[in-house]
C-alpha cells in the first residue's frame, strides 16, 4: 500500500468520526428542546394535525428508551432520511436537493472570485510590508470584514437597483425570459451579480488576511534567504519560492471557509430573495420548522466535512510532506 493510500484511509476514518460526532450533537440539540419533542416541533410549525405528531413520535421513537431513540435517529440519517417538513409538505431531503443548485451557483462563484482576488491582493500587500500598497489593501480587508453582509446587500440594492436601475433587486430569473439556453443563463447571471458581490467582499477580506500572513511567514524562512544568497532577484524569489509555499495552506483555508459561506448565504439569499438553501433556512426560521432546520444543519455540516476532506487530499497530493506530518 502506498503512503498516499494510507493517508487517504486515515483521513477518511477521521471524517467518519467527525460525522458521527455531528450526528451526536444534532441528537443532543433535538433533545435539549424544552417540552415534548414532537409537540414542540409540530406546535412551532403551527397547527399540525394529529397524524403528523404521530409520525414525528414514530420517527423519533419517543416512547422508547433514549438509546433506541438514538439508534433510530442514526439509522434514519444513514439512509439520508432527514424527516418530513410539515410546512412545505415535502420530505426535507427533497427540499434540500431542490435548492442546492441555486446555492452552489452563489457559493462556488463567490469562493472562486474571493480566493483569486484575496490571494493576489494578500501577496501584493505582503511583498512590501507597511508600504502604501500594504496599508491600502489591509484597510480594504478591514472594511470588507467589518461590513455586515445583509447591510452591504441592502446598500448594493439601494445603489444599483433603486438609484441606477441597472440590476434586478432580487430573485433568480425574470418572468417571461426563457429559462433555458443562453438567454436563460445570462438572465440568471444578471440576478446573481449582486448576491455574489456581497458574499465575495467578506471572503476576499478573509483570504487577503490569511494570504498576507502566509506570505510573510514563508518570506522569513531560511530557504528564501538562500535563494537571495545565490543571486535570485526579488521577483524570482517571490514567483518561484514564496508564492507556491504560501499558497499551500490557503488550499486548506478554502475548505475551512465553506461552512462560513453557507452561513453567509442565509442572510444574502434572504436579502436578495435568491431561491437557495439560505432562503429555505430563512423560511424555516420564519415558520419555526425545526425538522427542516435540523436537516439543513446536518446537510451543511456534511458538506463542510466533504470539502475539508477534498482540500486535505489535494494539499497532501501537492505536498507529500503533509502525509507524514499528520
Amino acid at each position: 500500500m502506498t503512503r498516499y493510500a494510507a493517508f487517504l484511509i486515515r483521513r477518511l476514518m477521521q471524517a467518519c468520526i467527525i460525522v458521527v460526532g455531528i450526528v451526536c450533537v444534532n441528537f443532543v440539540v433535538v433533545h435539549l428542546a424544552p417540552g415534548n419533542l414532537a409537540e414542540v416541533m409540530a406546535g412551532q410549525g403551527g397547527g399540525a394535525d394529529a397524524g403528523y405528531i404521530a409520525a414525528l413520535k414514530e420517527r423519533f421513537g419517543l416512547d422508547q428508551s433514549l438509546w433506541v431513540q438514538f439508534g433510530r435517529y442514526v439509522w434514519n440519517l444513514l439512509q439520508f432520511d432527514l424527516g418530513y417538513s410539515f410546512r412545505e409538505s415535502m420530505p426535507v431531503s427533497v427540499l434540500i436537493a431542490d435548492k442546492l443548485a441555486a446555492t452552489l451557483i452563489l457559493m462556488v462563484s463567490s469562493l472562486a472570485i474571493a480566493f483569486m482576488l484575496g490571494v493576489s491582493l494578500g501577496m501584493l500587500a505582503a511583498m512590501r510590508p507597511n508600504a502604501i500598497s500594504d496599508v491600502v489593501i489591509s484597510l480594504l480587508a478591514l472594511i470588507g470584514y467589518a461590513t455586515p453582509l445583509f447591510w452591504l446587500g441592502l446598500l448594493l440594492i439601494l445603489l444599483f437597483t433603486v438609484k441606477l436601475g441597472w440590476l434586478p433587486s432580487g430573485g433568480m430569473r425574470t418572468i417571461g425570459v426563457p429559462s433555458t439556453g443562453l438567454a436563460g443563463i445570462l438572465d440568471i447571471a444578471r440576478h446573481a451579480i449582486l448576491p455574489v458581490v456581497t458574499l465575495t467582499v467578506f471572503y476576499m477580506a478573509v483570504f487577503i488576511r490569511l494570504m498576507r500572513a502566509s506570505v510573510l511567514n514563508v518570506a522569513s524562512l531560511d530557504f528564501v534567504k538562500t535563494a537571495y544568497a545565490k543571486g535570485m532577484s526579488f521577483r524570482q524569489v517571490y514567483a518561484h519560492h514564496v508564492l507556491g509555499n504560501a499558497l499551500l495552506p490557503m488550499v486548506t483555508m478554502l475548505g475551512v471557509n465553506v461552512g462560513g459561506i453557507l452561513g453567509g448565504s442565509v442572510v444574502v439569499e434572504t436579502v436578495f430573495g435568491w431561491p437557495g438553501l439560505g432562503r429555505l433556512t430563512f423560511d424555516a426560521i420564519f415558520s419555526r420548522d425545526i425538522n427542516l432546520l435540523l436537516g439543513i444543519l446536518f446537510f451543511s455540516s456534511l458538506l463542510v466535512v466533504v470539502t475539508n476532506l477534498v482540500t486535505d487530499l489535494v494539499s497532501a497530493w501537492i505536498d507529500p510532506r503533509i502525509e507524514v506530518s499528520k
Partner: protein
Amino acid sequence: MSARGMRGRTPWLRPSALTGALILLVVLIGAVVAPVLFPAGPWPAVGVPYTPPFGSLAQPFGTDTLGRDVAAGLFYGARVSLTIAIVATVAALSIGVLVGATAGYVPGWCDDVLMRVTEIFQTIPNFIFVIVLVVIFQPSIVAIISAIAIVSWPPIARLVRAEFMSLRNREFVLSCKLVGVPPLKIIFTEILPNCLSPVIVTSSIMVATAVLLEAGLSFLGLGDPNVISWGTMVAIGRPALRTAPYLSIFPGIAIFLTVVAINLVGEALNEALDPRRNRG
C-alpha cells in the same frame, strides 16, 4: 528614529489604534448613557413616522416606520450589541480555556477526545448552528449569548492547547512539579498567565465576530423581542428601503464602526503584546 524606538512605543499611539479606541469609547459611553438620555426607552412613538434625519434637534436621526426615535434605538442597540458580544466572548473564553488547558496539560486519550470534540464543533457551520440553537430555545438574550458562546470557543481551545503543550515541559513548570505543587495550581498560576497575550488578542477579535453574529441573527428576526438591536433596526427599515433608506443605513453604520473599532484595537493589542514582532 531607531527601530526599537518605533516599535517600542507606537502601537497605542498610531492613528489607527487611537481612532479605534475613540470609536469604541463613544459606543461604550452611548451604551451607558442610553437610559439617561432616553428614559422612556426605544419603543414609544415620539413623532411623525418617517421624519427624515438631520431635520430637528429632537430627533436628529429621524423616526422609523412607527414614529419611534432612531437615535434612541441606536443608543439602546449599543447596549444590547456590546452586552451580548462581551458576555458571549467571556463564556466562550471560559469553555475554550478549560478544554484547551486540559487537552494541552494531559496528553494521551484525554487530549485526543477533547480535540475531536473541538474539531466537530469547528466543522458545523457556525451561523446555521447558532440559528438552530436560538430557534429551539426561543429567542432571548440568554439563548443568544449561549448559542454564540457554543460556536465560538474552538479557536481559543486550540490556541490554549498549543501554548500549554509548548510550556508544560519547560524548566519552570517541571521545577514546580518536582517540589509538589498541585496540577491545578500549576495550570492556573504558572502556565495560564504565560499564554495570556495571544488569548487576549484572539478574544478581542471574537468580540467583533460576536457583534456580527448577533446583528445577523436579529436581522433574520431572531433577536430578543424585548430589546432593540442594530440588526433588528435594519430589518425594520428594510421594507422602506426605497422611501427611507436612512432607517437601514444608520444602524448598519453603527455595526460597521463598532466592528472596525474592535479590530483596530485588537491589532494594536496584538502588536503590543506579541514579543515576536519586536524581533524584526
